[in-house]
């Protein structure tokens, strides 16, 4: 997951300025003409880390922009507790529930109970196998595709590659599918080494592995590291091996630390593709709001990723995530689940 952070302050400011225009609320469909009576719950499975922090700030900012009452339930990776929390939210009489991550097995029935109780439900990154519940997704396949298309653009169609991958992690598995497609499509791409580990601190462990790989396989031109912690580790190893000008790294996800690593003079980190987790949080709330207003956000709501190249960062002098949002509008706001009446928390 990407390490991303976003100023709550900035967002709440934006949200507050919207709330300062009460006339707007009157134009919104029921029940958002009286948003203070609308209660929604966010039921979380994962919450530790920058990605989840940023996701939460997005949920909060959109809830604030709508003026609805948000309750946050945090199960801290306890699958049984998360299911109980859905029941708790039902008992509280909330109008809508966002299920954020979790296990299909434990959440399927709880989600069904919520739907049976007449509550609108959306799910982010967890499949609860229910036709009535839209899926919010950040498209991992698109992430990988954008990064790899840039790699082809920069290096042509034939190169020696090393690939960083750990099987069994859902987003990495989806990114892996795209990598396999690219290898099949471009026969010139030669994968000479595959490695990867999630031992934390991940960047340090990956750096150790990458050093060995680079020594054992001279002539690697491209490293595809579709997770920013992997890319950070590979970059450390490339620098230590003195190969910064010979190797290009393509990754997924972005954070303030990644931005400074990509902008170092002569950095080997060429490009990354990322979805803004705060935007994913906003889209989750918007999709739920559409359902509450009787509209249909669609069976699956996909938040499109943005390609961020080293040149983008340097040309716009982007130093951190806030600059990135300010100077790359496609990263700040996704025009997804955005009917005319929906307040935009990013304006």
């Amino acid at each position: 997951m990407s390490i991303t952070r976003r100023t709550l302050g900035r967002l709440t400011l934006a949200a507050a300025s919207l709330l300062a225009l009460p006339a707007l609320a009157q134009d919104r469909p029921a029940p958002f003409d009286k948003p203070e009576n609308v209660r929604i719950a966010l039921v979380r499975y994962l919450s530790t880390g920058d990605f989840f922090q940023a996701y939460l700030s997005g949920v909060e900012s959109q809830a604030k922009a709508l003026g609805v009452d948000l309750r946050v339930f945090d199960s801290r990776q306890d699958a049984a507790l998360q299911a109980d929390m859905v029941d708790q939210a039902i008992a509280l009489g909330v109008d809508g529930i966002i299920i954020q991550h979790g296990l299909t097995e434990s959440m399927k029935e709880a989600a069904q109970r919520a739907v049976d109780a007449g509550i609108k439900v959306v799910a982010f990154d967890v499949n609860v196998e229910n036709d009535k519940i839209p899926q919010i997704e950040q498209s991992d396949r698109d992430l990988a595709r954008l990064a790899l298309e840039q790699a082809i653009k920069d290096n042509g169609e034939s190169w020696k590659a090393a690939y960083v991958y750990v099987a069994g992690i859902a987003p990495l598995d989806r990114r892996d599918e795209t990598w396999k497609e690219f290898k099949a499509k471009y026969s010139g791409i030669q994968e000479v080494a595959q490695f990867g580990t999630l031992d934390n601190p991940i960047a340090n462990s990956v750096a150790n592995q990458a050093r060995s790989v680079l020594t054992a396989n001279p002539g690697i031109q491209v490293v595809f590291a579709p997770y920013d912690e992997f890319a950070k580790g590979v970059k450390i190893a490339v620098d230590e091996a003195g190969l910064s000008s010979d190797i290009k790294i393509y990754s997924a996800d972005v954070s303030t630390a990644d931005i400074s690593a990509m902008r170092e003079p002569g950095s080997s980190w060429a490009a990354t593709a990322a979805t803004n987790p705060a935007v994913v949080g906003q889209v989750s709330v918007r999709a739920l709001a559409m359902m509450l207003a009787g509209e249909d956000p669609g069976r699956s709501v996909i938040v499109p990723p943005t390609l961020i190249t080293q040149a983008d960062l340097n040309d716009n002098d982007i130093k951190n995530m806030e600059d990135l949002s300010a100077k790359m509008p496609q990263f700040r706001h996704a025009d997804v689940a955005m009917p005319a009446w929906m307040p935009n928390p990013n304006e």
Partner: protein
Amino acid sequence: MANIVIRYGFLALLAGLIIFFAVAAPGFASPQSAVFIFQSVAITGILALGVTATLVVGGFDLSIGSVATSAMMAAAYAMVVMEQSAFVAVLFCLAIGAIVGLINGIIIVYMRVPDLLATLGMMFLLVGLQRIPTEGRSIAAGMTLPDGSTATGTFSEAFLSLGRHRFDFFLPNLVPVSVVVLLVLAVLIWFFLEFTRFGRMMYAVGSNEKAAELAGAPVKAYKIWAYVISGIFASIGGILLAARLGRGDIASGNNLLLDAVAAALIGFAVLGAAKPNAFGTAIGALFVGVLLQGLTMMNAPYYTQDFVKGAVLVVALVFTFALSSRTK
């Protein structure tokens, strides 16, 4: 014969392994490769040397991994948020390590909490504590602080050079700082434990606490010192980690803990010592490093590496407990 196997078996295994990888993995037999094997084990090796000190007095320290990651966060916080110099950041980290070690020691010695439980509690405490100042965010230059402002500090060049500078040694730019620190600390702690009165007394405390106490040794002080050493070593590991990564990552450090403990336990088997010892710990860390880097060069996936690490540990423990007790 059995004696020779017990004494030199593990070293022979290490030599065999190196020869095997030199033949099987291209690029393994080079000075650069040797250096980065040392580099890959430098941080866990330093932690392992610290935990060896607590093992010597018959204790255990589960908090070293989280002390290291807390020190990493503290270094990043001191420089990026508080805009302090590299020197202050390093002192700050060492102080944290020493204080945590002191608290561990006091809880264990005076409150009579069993070592595993006390340091387990400390581990959780630190994993939480390191996230409080930044509300769970990692620390990097230019990050946004919880109050919405942007941090203006950066990692100082002097601090980063701890992770990036390389000393000339036969070849230019060969040996990274972390490897030098590892070697210096290994020699220091080895000399301290084997040849100083203080170190020998720590062994005495570990092998028979009652007897040491009756002989008039200040057992409690020795034990507390062991945890302080362990805390300081772990914080040195954290400083080097921060210098290499160039940012403060939130991390539990559990993998650092497990790898360090594995190295210290493998060390029991080296030279048939059958007890914690600094030389063995260093060899143990090196052994794991050679295995993992060699396997990575041969494109072995990560799960086989965990498997091999576990297998080595089991073999080492069998060496220690079964073989050496049989000959006694």
